[in-house]
């Protein structure tokens, strides 16, 4: 069994008190002893190591610190202990803080507020700069269409569009059921259950199909864009592309933007269709409206401009989601933690902007008479 470190004090040769450290003086044994040693009062005339067994640098440090504290010499040290104490004594003038420098709380809060506000201002400038780069790169691609990366575009369309079909379908089906069920409960009070068809059809095509798809795509693909580009920035892949003469905006950002803008309206219509099927299924089961009657009725009650509203919003939301993902990814500079915060930022920024713009579109389309 391993011994435990301890200490005793005994009267020394010249009337002083000798502090005798016993047992193994190791990092594993000194932890419990340390606070007792620190509580010790002087005066101590010598530190005796002759009764200690083994020693490591933590033991050497403890002996050295005690000897400095009491101004007492170390006696009875083995050659090994002497060697370690020699090495430690050369490394004892570090007074730097272990934690990073921090301001007191009263100063830190206003400082943080200031950083956030200037960050907002800089963020707007940076986003505008990024959009400018995208426009320039698009212009260059229009002039040299052969540089356009079709394979990357198709690959991204598969990743963010085709692979999302299952989850978006399931989500839309369930939301369609919920709208039909809740709508029917309210409309039943007026005996107007048949208007459930209008509610489900118009809401799905006009609002929910595109909006929910945008939120799902922001969570699935916007975050992926930010994390991918951020990691590529950290591993200097993007710098390497620049030096080879490949524009990262052309090669990475434009395919992602285009893929999202193409797939968003398609996913939106798909989502609306599945939502309507969900509503029709519930109506067939609980409201007594036959499934195909429900679908036929949709054609009569949903004006065509509702489909257009959904289709127009799709690419705009796609642009927002992909831009915030790519923009945040390319802002990564230092470390892994930043990839995380930038990814979060990308999703939050995308969903926030999508909802703000959706409100704007709602007002706009009703003003132009597409209510």
């Amino acid at each position, binding site marked *: 069994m391993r011994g435990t470190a301890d200490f005793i004090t005994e009267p020394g040769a010249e009337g002083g008190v000798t502090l005798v450290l016993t047992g193994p003086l190791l*990092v594993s044994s000194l*932890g419990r002893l340390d606070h007792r040693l620190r509580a010790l009062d002087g005066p101590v005339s010598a530190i005796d190591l002759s009764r200690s067994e083994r020693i490591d640098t933590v033991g050497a*440090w403890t002996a050295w*610190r005690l000897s400095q504290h009491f101004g007492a010499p170390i006696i009875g040290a083995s050659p*090994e202990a002497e060697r370690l104490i020699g090495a430690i004594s050369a490394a004892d003038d570090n*007074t*730097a803080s272990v934690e990073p420098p921090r301001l007191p709380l009263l100063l830190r809060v206003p400082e943080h507020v200031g950083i956030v506000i200037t960050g907002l201002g800089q963020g707007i400038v940076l986003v505008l700069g990024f959009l400018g780069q995208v426009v320039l790169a698009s212009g260059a691609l229009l002039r040299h269409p052969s540089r356009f990366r079709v394979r990357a575009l198709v690959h991204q369309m598969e990743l963010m569009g085709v692979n999302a079909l299952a989850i978006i379908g399931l989500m839309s089906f369930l939301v369609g059921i919920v709208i039909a069920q809740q709508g029917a409960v309210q409309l039943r009070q007026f005996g107007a259950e048949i208007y459930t068809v209008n509610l489900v059809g118009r809401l799905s095509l006009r609002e929910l199909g595109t909006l929910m798809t945008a939120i799902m795509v922001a969570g699935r693909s916007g975050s992926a864009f930010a994390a991918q580009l951020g990691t590529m920035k950290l591993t200097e892949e993007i710098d390497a592309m620049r030096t080879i003469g490949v524009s990262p905006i052309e090669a990475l950002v434009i395919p992602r933007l285009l893929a999202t803008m193409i797939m968003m309206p398609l996913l939106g219509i798909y989502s609306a269709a599945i939502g309507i099927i969900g509503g029709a299924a519930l109506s067939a089961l609980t409201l007594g409206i036959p499934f195909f009657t429900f679908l036929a009725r949709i054609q009569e009650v949903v004006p065509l401009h509702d489909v257009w509203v959904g289709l127009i919003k799709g690419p705009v939301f796609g642009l927002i989601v992909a831009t915030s993902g790519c923009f945040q990814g390319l802002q990564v500079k230092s470390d892994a933690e930043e990839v995380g915060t930038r990814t979060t930022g990308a999703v939050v920024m995308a969903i926030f902007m999508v909802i703000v713009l959706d409100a704007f579109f709602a007002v706009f389309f009703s003003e132009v008479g597409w209510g």
Partner: protein
Amino acid sequence: MTAETTCAVPAPIGSEADLFPIRVRGLRNAFGTHVIHENLDLDVRKGEILGVVGGSGTGKSVLMRSIIGLQIPEAGEIEVLGSPITDARDDDDIDIRCRWGILFQGGALFSTLTVAENVEVPLREFYPEITDELRHEIARYKVLLSGLPAEATSKYPSELSGGMKKRAGLARALALDPELLFLDEPTAGLDPIGAAGFDQLIRSLQQTLGLTVFLITHDLDTLYEICDRVAVIADKRVIAVGTIPELLATDHPWIKSYFNGPRGRAALASSQRREDTAAMADANAGPGALGTAAEGA
């Protein structure tokens, strides 16, 4: 049951496990059908610096990862400090992990912690009873022992240069006063002056702290300067272990081309030059040196 982890008791002096802190027998590693190691044997002696060399892709890092339990081998036995590693699970090999320190190639520092906080992580993990005060003191002197300036103590890894990151990684590897130190290409990516300084640092720490060092390197200067023995990995196993003169005496083609290539000859020449100057300096300062030796005795 306490959640507290205890450190393995050192093996009795003179026992097999004490003389050979690392023993590898019949190791086989494969990724799919690609066999990396086949029937690999290796013994590391206590208190030596063992250099491990081999061409790129011969599995030097995989060997190290197997020894420290990050890679589960397909077959074979690995014993580190008397404990078998091959069948180790996460919870019962914990006692061996407080007796080794590992420096990964890129430093592998925790990026959200300062250098000193990085050093404190293993101390917190294994010895929660150590007071904050003592733990901070330990972190501070370990930072200096690793050759970092005091200002680096509270810096984040992203604020350090490549060489300083390696030193910070070394400080963390030494946090628990280990007996065994694993170094994966410690001088890769350092400038020659920085690399030579790092070699000397490893040598002096090894002598002061009595470490056994397992060192993977491509750096011929490191091999000549600080390694006691060199193990050569080729043909999926360790084909030779010995001092460099012993290795030069073998006639394996890879060893020959490794040490007798232009870089090998240059490293040999520079190490001989240094020894000559050191010998001359000793001869010139003969009486003085003897005097200090006598005083020391």
